[in-house]
């Protein structure tokens, strides 16, 4: 087991330093690039925080849906393949719910401010 602080704590510390101490000092194209860099660190922090739980839930749904076991990557490959072959579609019980849950979990990491995501987050299903 690795020592602490955790990767989440470390990336957050770097992002905060760049945002609070460095960003006010620079301008122009470098400031734009710095904003992108801070956004990347924020994304990584969100992923480190959320990934374990959302991947576990995704694997659980995929196992039920596909009737087989495997890693999250392997199971996604099988699902993609079955949709391509027409063996699974939106009429398949659970598929739409699974894709929605997975996509919402992705947006929570990638782009929590994306308007479509915020709209769907507020919707009661």
């Amino acid at each position: 087991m690795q020592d602490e602080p955790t990767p989440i704590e470390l990336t957050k510390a770097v992002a905060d330093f760049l945002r609070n101490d460095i960003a006010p000092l620079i301008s122009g194209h470098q400031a734009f690039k710095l904003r992108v860099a801070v956004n990347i660190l924020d994304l990584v922090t969100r992923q480190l925080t959320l990934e374990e739980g959302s991947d576990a839930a995704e694997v659980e749904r995929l196992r039920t849906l596909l009737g087989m076991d495997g890693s999250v990557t392997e199971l996604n490959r099988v699902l993609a393949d079955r949709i391509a072959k027409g063996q699974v579609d939106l009429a398949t019980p659970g598929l739409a719910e699974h894709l929605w849950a997975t996509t919402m979990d992705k947006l929570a990491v990638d782009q929590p401010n994306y308007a479509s995501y915020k709209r769907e987050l507020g919707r009661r299903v």
Partner: protein
Amino acid sequence: MIEAELSRSVVRWCKGATGVAGAEKLSGGASQETWRFDIVHPDGVIGAILRRSPKGYGAAPTRAAGLAAEAQLMQLAYEAGVPSPRVMHVLTPEDDLGTGFIMQRVEGETIARKILRDDEFAAARPLLARQIGGILAGLHQLPQDKLPELRNRGATQEISDFERDYRSLNWPKPVFELALRWLRDHDPGPSAETTLVHGDFRNGNLIVGPDGVRAVLDWELAHLGDPMEDLGWVCVNSWRFGEIDKPVGGFGAREELFEGYEAVGRKVDPARVKFWEVMGTLRWGIMCGGMMQRFREGPDHSMERAMIGRRASETEIDLLRLLAPRGS
């Protein structure tokens, strides 16, 4: 140093011009650059834009129409009254500037977020969806016998091309698979009418002033095909920049777009428009995947490209909203 070459070029074809000043690079991919500069003239400075492939970059990407075709299309559009910059000069080998063209600069804003938020455009915004309909109608009726050679792409061919692009990424995405199936199941087949299609008509490629659209830019992806493709692409959620209830570029309703289009005597097929909106959403998602791949394989190891790769999930939620909407 580009100023010396530009000066030599400009004095040859622009009567009275004595040189150029203030050349500044606006954007530059590996194969295409855009420069702004001023032509110095006794009657007053003329704002100009150079679009070029620098020397040594001859071949355009497979989907691109090429800069010569782009110049010809912009000139045709300008003459037909479709808002477009005036093409002043098409580069020749004597110019020693590569291949491309020089056009008159149109002042205005292209940054979508500013057009959608700034007070300066408040009066223009409610008019834009309808105006865009009229512009697209004008663009689709440009005389076909005067068009340069362009690739011809219908729905069926496009689905196959995007599927091939997607598979080449080796990036299994169940939502994209679902969209590909939906597109195959809803393929409207050949369009009753084949017209010029702009191919990238959207918020970001339009110069807008307080009075509305002043110019349509980036004719790189122009081709012959289904005119409804342009109407669907301009409605893709990715170009609404947060204004998700205003499908036409974040400006207004589909109905306004359609009315503007039909006011000129052309017909809209809403089912085809929806098909192309789904196609366009997937297309942008696959393009994000392409960015991810180029980031990973280099030579452009930029953070921006990496982050665009991560935007594919935005198109996944938009595809689900289109194809499997949750109880509303």
